[in-house]
Every structure is written in structure tokens, then in C-alpha cells.
């Protein structure tokens, strides 16, 4: 590794196949030069040409070395199992200690987060993402697997602790569904890519009311289809063990199944919501007030019964929606 510039390109590519895309993304043309070493490749260009390309050999060598180290750790490591996330109390905006002792969230659990807009939900989510160690404005402390977490969670780009799904997200790429998921799979260096892609599209279709094809352009998916694809893709392809959801709109998607898909992939799910049905779907709910956690409430049996009634009402409303959309006239409630 120290003498990376004395290896032939061919040897490098054999040893580290992921370098192919590294060369492409750094716009270094290597085709026809496989028999040369990196040093020789650079020697072929004069200083002006290198400057034109925006390439500086010394920096390039440093970066390719760093990239290989990162990729090797990434490929070689065990699954980063996050079995639990623990939040230890800090204080609210006025400096009062938060209203709970210790909150342990386990894999496969859903926690809802409720509270008025601007009450401090974003800060809580940010504290978790940054694995706060009493060094954020709230002074909260986050433990992973009941232990002080590795610093890598803060800075690694391939190992983010938290994936986020939120209401106002859109697809902005001009690709088909298949190409899109493929791109994501490639960036994650997934093996048996085709199977994974197929599974994601199947699951997304499962969640969406109206089905779509692999060759549908992502920008022409309906709101419900987009959300379904985002959730299926995040559940299956995202490495992040914790998923933060900011509302799931109640249209064109089966929310209950969406949540159970995320849970079946061993995620910890945190869900900020104003919707009573989603709030009660959580095993527990965090109530946020004045920048701090005011209370942690366990969903009671009575609430679960009420949830069934609410869901029934929800279905009724949706049924009317469908009727109106298909041109029917409503005569009774």
C-alpha cells in the first residue's frame, strides 16, 4: 500500500476492483494504460495538462490510498449491529432537566415523537445522528449498545448512523426505477445486485396502492409510489441502523406495512408525527416541549383499542376518497 504508485494499473484494478469507478469519478483516463504504473501514467502528462485536468499527483496518491483503506474496512467489517440506542437526559431550553431517566430503544421498536412544531424534534434527531456526548446545546448523551459510541458514526460517509425519510422529499434524478435503485446498490457495493433490486421494486409495489414497472421514470411516480419506493429502498439498501421518519402521508401507501417492512429489516424506527394513528402505532412516544423531552409514554392497552377504532375511521374516509375519485355520488355516511 505504501508504494501504490509503483503498482501497474492492471494490478491495482485486479486487487481493488472498486478503483475502476474511482478513476472514472476522478476523470483520470486509464484505458490503454493498464500496463503502466501510476507514476508512469502521471509522467506521461506534462504539468500544464495535469493542471488542466485539475489533478495533482501527490494529492491523488494520498486520496487513492485513503480510499482503498476506507473501502477495505467497509468491505471487510462485520455488520454494524446496532441493537439498542440509549438516550440519557439533558436539559430543555430553559435549563430544566428533561422528564425521563433513561430511554433505551431496541432494534425492532417504533418510537413516535410528538410535540408542537419548533419544539425541538429536529434537535433530538440531530443529537442522535451526532451521537451527542453532552456536547450539544441539550447536553444529552447517546449510547449505542449501552456503550460510548465509536467516533466513526460522526464522520464516516458510508457508515451513517441514521437514515431519514421525510414528507417533502422528492426524486430529482432523471432515471427509471430500475436504474435508480441500481445506482444506489452500486454505491453500496452490494453483491447479487439484480436480486436486491428486484426485491426492492416488489416490496415497493406491495406498499403502493397503484403498481409501477421497473422502467417507469422515477420522476413520474405518484406521491404514494414515490414514498413506497423510498421506504422499500431505505429499508433494504440503506446500511444505517436507525431510520428517522418525518410523517408518512396517508395517501397511496399502506403505512402499517411500510413500518413492518422497516422493522423486519432490523431497524430502529423513530417517527415524528402529528397524526394520531401513527403516534399510537409506536410502542412508546416521546413528548417534546420547550426543546426538551417532557415525557416518555408507553402506549396503553386502551390506546391500542382506540387505535383500532381510529384505523377503522381512517379506512372509512379513504373509502369515500376512492368513491369520489371514481365519480360516484355520496348519499349517506
Amino acid at each position, binding site marked *: 500500500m505504501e508504494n501504490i504508485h509503483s503498482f501497474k494499473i492492471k494490478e491495482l484494478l485486479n486487487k481493488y476492483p472498486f478503483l475502476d*469507478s*474511482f478513476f*472514472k*469519478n*476522478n*476523470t483520470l483516463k486509464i484505458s490503454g494504460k493498464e500496463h503502466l504504473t501510476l507514476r508512469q501514467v502521471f509522467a506521461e502528462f506534462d504539468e500544464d495538462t495535469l*493542471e488542466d485536468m*485539475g489533478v*495533482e499527483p501527490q*494529492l491523488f496518491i*494520498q*486520496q*487513492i490510498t*485513503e*480510499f482503498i483503506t*476506507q473501502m477495505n474496512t467497509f468491505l471487510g467489517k462485520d455488520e454494524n449491529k446496532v441493537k439498542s440506542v440509549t438516550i440519557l437526559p439533558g436539559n430543555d431550553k430553559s435549563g430544566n432537566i428533561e422528564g425521563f431517566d433513561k430511554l433505551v430503544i431496541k432494534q425492532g421498536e417504533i418510537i413516535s415523537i410528538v410535540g408542537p412544531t419548533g419544539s425541538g424534534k*429536529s434537535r433530538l*434527531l*440531530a443529537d442522535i445522528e*451526532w451521537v451527542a456526548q453532552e*456536547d*450539544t*446545546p441539550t447536553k444529552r448523551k447517546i449510547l449505542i449498545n449501552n456503550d460510548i459510541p465509536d467516533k466513526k458514526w*460522526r*464522520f464516516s*460517509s*458510508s457508515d*451513517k448512523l441514521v*437514515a*431519514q*425519510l*421525510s414528507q*417533502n*422529499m*422528492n*426524486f*430529482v*434524478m432523471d432515471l427509471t426505477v430500475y436504474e*435508480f*435503485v441500481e*445506482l*444506489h446498490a452500486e*454505491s*453500496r457495493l452490494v453483491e447479487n445486485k439484480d436480486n436486491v433490486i428486484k426485491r426492492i421494486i416488489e416490496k415497493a409495489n406491495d406498499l403502493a396502492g397503484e403498481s409501477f414497472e421497473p422502467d417507469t421514470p422515477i420522476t413520474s411516480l405518484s406521491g404514494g409510489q*414515490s414514498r413506497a419506493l*423510498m421506504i422499500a*429502498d*431505505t429499508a433494504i*439498501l*440503506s446500511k444505517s441502523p436507525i431510520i428517522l421518519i418525518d410523517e408518512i402521508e396517508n395517501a397511496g401507501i399502506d403505512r402499517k406495512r411500510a413500518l413492518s417492512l422497516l422493522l423486519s429489516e432490523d431497524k430502529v424506527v423513530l417517527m415524528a408525527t402529528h397524526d394520531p394513528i401513527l403516534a399510537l402505532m409506536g410502542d412508546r412516544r416521546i413528548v417534546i416541549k420547550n426543546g426538551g423531552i417532557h415525557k416518555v409514554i408507553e402506549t396503553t392497552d386502551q390506546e391500542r383499542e382506540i387505535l383500532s377504532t381510529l384505523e377503522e375511521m381512517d379506512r372509512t374516509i379513504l373509502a369515500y376518497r376512492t368513491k369520489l375519485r371514481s365519480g360516484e355520488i355520496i348519499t349517506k355516511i
Partner: protein
Amino acid sequence: MNLVTVSGPPSSGKTAVILKTIDALKKQNLKIGVVKFDCLYTDDDELYKKAGIKVKKGLSGALCPDHYFVSNIEEVTQWGLDEGFDILISESAGLCNRCSPYIKDIKAICVIDNLSGINTPKKIGPMLKSADIVIITKGDIVSQAEREVFAARVNMVNPAAIIMHINGLTGQGSFELSTLLYDETVQTNSLKGMKLRFPMPAALCSYCLGETRIGESYQMGNVRKMDFEEK
């Protein structure tokens, strides 16, 4: 004083990120100033003033903005020292995607946004590749998949950088950035003799000197022609 250079394509969210980060820095009782470099017009200085931050602006007008930056950065540093800042942040737009105002041993931050498209990291040269910290903005409006792909591509062109996501509207992530900016052991008293991390794009041709007519006979100096023979 610590000097921090921030740059990034126009409208990527540099000002929003800096404003939110300063909010967090102020709580550490640090005195902060900003210098904003732009081409023809900017009213970002008003935004800084409104937030109670001392600001100077420099408009390059008809000059290359990054050449203008490097010709003035030492004077800007002296201004910052006179004002007694703990941190001086320079903000400049990378308009041609090739330039980079970063200085060796001075903290360099590049701001780019998720909406700019996944091939953008490949297109931006030294401004992205030689930054110490890369801030990715507008993550709240694209899907998780796109964010991950975008960050992976940034990592590929600059594996050594710290990559962070900041929401310029809510400020999520800016507190975290603020913890990386100030280092009291660093004292920058002058930039004289320091070097740019990368040479700026060169041009010295008749158009630099005010020529407006088109045609080969009007072109002199450092002129390059496209190759139409290339297959």
C-alpha cells in the same frame, strides 16, 4: 485568529450554512467576522449585518473572482486582526467549477447541494477535491437514496474530507460543524508567503484585455482551440 475559507457553487447554501454555524459559535463567546467575495452583486452582506455580524464585501467586477480573492485575502486577514476576531470566515463562489481559493494550512470548506446532480462531484475540480470539510446541503428535499449516492460520489473524489450534511433552513448539522471550526492553538497573523493549494485557471488573452470582436484575427495570447478531429 483562525481563518476559514468557505466556497461552493452559487446558490448551494454557503451563506445559510455560515449564518447558522455562527449562531452556534456565538454561544461559545467567540468574536466572528465574515468577508463575502462575489462577482457583480451580492446582498448577502445585509443578511450578515442583520444577524449582527461584522462583514466586508468584495466585488470582483470585471476581474476573475478567484484571482481577485487571492489578491485581497492578506488585506482581509489584517482587517480581521484589527477587528480582533477569533474567527474570520471568507465566503466565495466557485463560479467556473475549476478554481479553488484554498490556502495550505488554512481550513477549507466546500459547500455543495444534493440538487446539483450526482455527476457534479466529478465536475467540480480542486474546490471539492482539496477541501478539508465538505458540507452537503438541501438533503431535506431529496430521497435517502440520492443523498447516499451523492455522498458516496463526493467521498470518491475526496476520500480524506469530513463529509457533513447541513440543512440550511433549520440549521440541523450546523452546531456539529461549529465544533470543528475553532482551534485556539492556531494563530494566523499573516498569509504572506503561504501558498494556494492549487494553481488557479490561467488566461491571458485579448479578451482579458477588453476585446469584444469575434474571429481568429482578434485572438492573441493564451488562446486554445477545440479539437474537431478527435474521435
